[in-house]
């Protein structure tokens, strides 16, 4: 008997017979607080830096955040106006991992949805986010969030995602470890610096 058939046979014999009803009386919609304020508070708590600006101030804000970057990586579908104020080199796909790993490289993306309650940005590889390696290898990630993309809790966020089978990355603050005496250290393997620009 193949391993597959054997495991399935065992599971069929061993499983409980009573059907289970799953209660769903937890909070499905999370409103009430000022969700933008809440998201900013949670992100700052995770040692991300946050700037708020109007749509016409966005290019200027990004330019300032990128001031010490020697090159900026942008996904294929990022709006051109994001980089209007940036003077440095702009890198576009196709890119090798070595290009992303070069010193001084920052990456600029949007996101699919942001969760206020947990301070989480969800990337779904959409046109303004690109493939996963873009936001992983460079040391500095700048993420643009529009207030319309902010929801209260995790249930609303997952419900908003267009296609769950796309590669998804949930980011809550910069890379961190607590493995040494439980001291939180930001920046082990992912980007050490996470800047979030919230556009009203």
């Amino acid at each position, binding site marked *: 008997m193949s*391993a*597959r058939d*054997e*495991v*399935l046979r065992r*599971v069929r*014999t*061993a*499983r*409980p*017979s009573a*059907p*289970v*009803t*799953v*209660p769903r*009386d*937890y*909070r499905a919609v999370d409103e009430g607080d000022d969700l933008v304020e809440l998201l900013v508070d949670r992100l700052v708590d*995770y040692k991300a830096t946050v700037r708020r600006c109007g749509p016409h101030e966005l290019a200027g804000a990004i330019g300032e955040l990128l001031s010490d970057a020697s090159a900026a990586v942008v996904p294929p579908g990022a709006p051109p106006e994001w980089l209007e104020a940036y003077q440095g080199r702009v890198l576009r796909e196709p890119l090798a*991992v*070595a290009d992303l790993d070069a010193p001084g490289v920052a990456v600029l993306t949007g996101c699919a949805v942001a*969760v206020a*309650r*947990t*301070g*989480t940005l969800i990337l779904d*590889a959409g046109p303004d986010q690109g*493939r*996963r*390696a873009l936001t*992983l290898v460079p040391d500095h990630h700048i993420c643009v969030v529009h207030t319309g993309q902010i929801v209260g*809790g*995790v*249930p609303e966020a997952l*419900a908003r995602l267009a296609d*769950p*089978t796309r*590669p*998804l*990355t*949930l*980011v*809550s*603050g*910069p*890379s*961190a*470890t*607590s*493995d*040494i*005496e*439980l001291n939180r*250290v930001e*920046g*082990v*393997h*992912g*980007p050490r610096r996470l800047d979030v620009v919230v556009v009203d």
Partner: protein
Amino acid sequence: MSGGNIVARLPFPVAARKELGDAQLRANLRNATHTIRDKRLRMVGEVPDWEELRRSGAAIKDDVLSRLPELLTQFEAAATAAGATVHWARDAAEACAVVTALVRDTGTAEVVKVKSMVTQEIGLNDSLEAAGIAAVETDLAELIVQLAGDTPSHILVPAIHYNRSQIRDIFHRNGLSALTDDPPALAEAARRHLRAKFLSARVGISGANFAVAESGTLVVVESEGNGRMCLTLPETLISVVGIEKILPTFRDLEVFLQLLPRSSTGERMNPYTSLWTGVTPGDGPQTVHIVLVDNGRTETLADDVGRQALRCIRCSACLNVCPVYERVGGHAYGSVYPGPIGAILSPQLSGGGANRTLPYASTLCGACYDACPVRINIPEVLVHLRQTGPHPPAERAAMRALSWIMRDRRRYAAALRAARRGAAPIRWATGRRGAVRHLPWPLSKWTSTRDAPLPAKQTFREWWAHERTR
């Protein structure tokens, strides 16, 4: 039959006695467990619907266990349709053989690994090494443990038993240089050491926190970004997944992504969570293998009381609140699953041997049940396993005699009087302590790990009668 690193080499009482002698270990553990448990309490207190989430989480897992055959085949079909190749393994040896063959086929001699309990459970690193393949652990704590030639002592923070100066020494011995023993300096040394490996690795190996049946999606929850590196940069990804990790729908993640981070690290959300479904052209590994592992899970599933252990999402909240774990640490449990959950999971997954003593490695205080995000009634399972486990003939005879005495009130009262008379001279000898530290053989077996209390000077009935007539 199952196997791998779930079976303890030493019975718990023997291993615990040795660990208890290490004062540094106890200090490190106390500091760590109290820090995490306080953080967890604060974060759980923020969530007004925590109990509702716990009940949903438990029910979703129970629903999965009752529909496992259908959900596993549904997962297999969806993952295959998305471009993954699904393999099955009955036990640890078979799972290791499947993974080893897959790595061999790629022709590489080094793989990068995401921290994963199931690969530790099946002893994958040793199997790969025997086949000439180096498995590099990339989680900082796992790396520390690997470089030290040690084994993990906690599910979530495997190097919890080391402090910073011990870690610097371990790094130093292995050629990783850190200028100081500050945690940021040590993390930086690990980052430099591992970055070259991430960028050149051709094969990544991971476990999965969840596997979604309807879409064939796998989920890995982590903090450092080493997981994202292993899941994204190599050409080939091999994910080893216990069959109980299935969730029916993508929506079910809304419950577990709320329960897991707050329970495990005491954070609102962990820094990084990755979800991937088969192969995505142009993004991440283009060859994806999934190995579904039984290794004792179906035996556990067959037990009406014990099967709730399969709800476990490996958050380790039960470890951090356990008075026994806090004093002896993870190594005393022998298995890769330590603490309260290990005390019920390990003996069920692996049957007898030294693991038979694990259900006794508990005070039955119930703190683990309160902390568990999926409401595993660990004390209930501990008592159940103690009842169904083997007992020495002397203990059985003593319990039979006691049961005969306690069935009749007059017999019971007479026995108490006799015990009190017998204890009178001992009470005088023990003074105020009121307990005996060492009894003569064969009762010394009882007092080797605990004091024997002396009978009370007066029974409650006697006290009551005396009070009434006063």
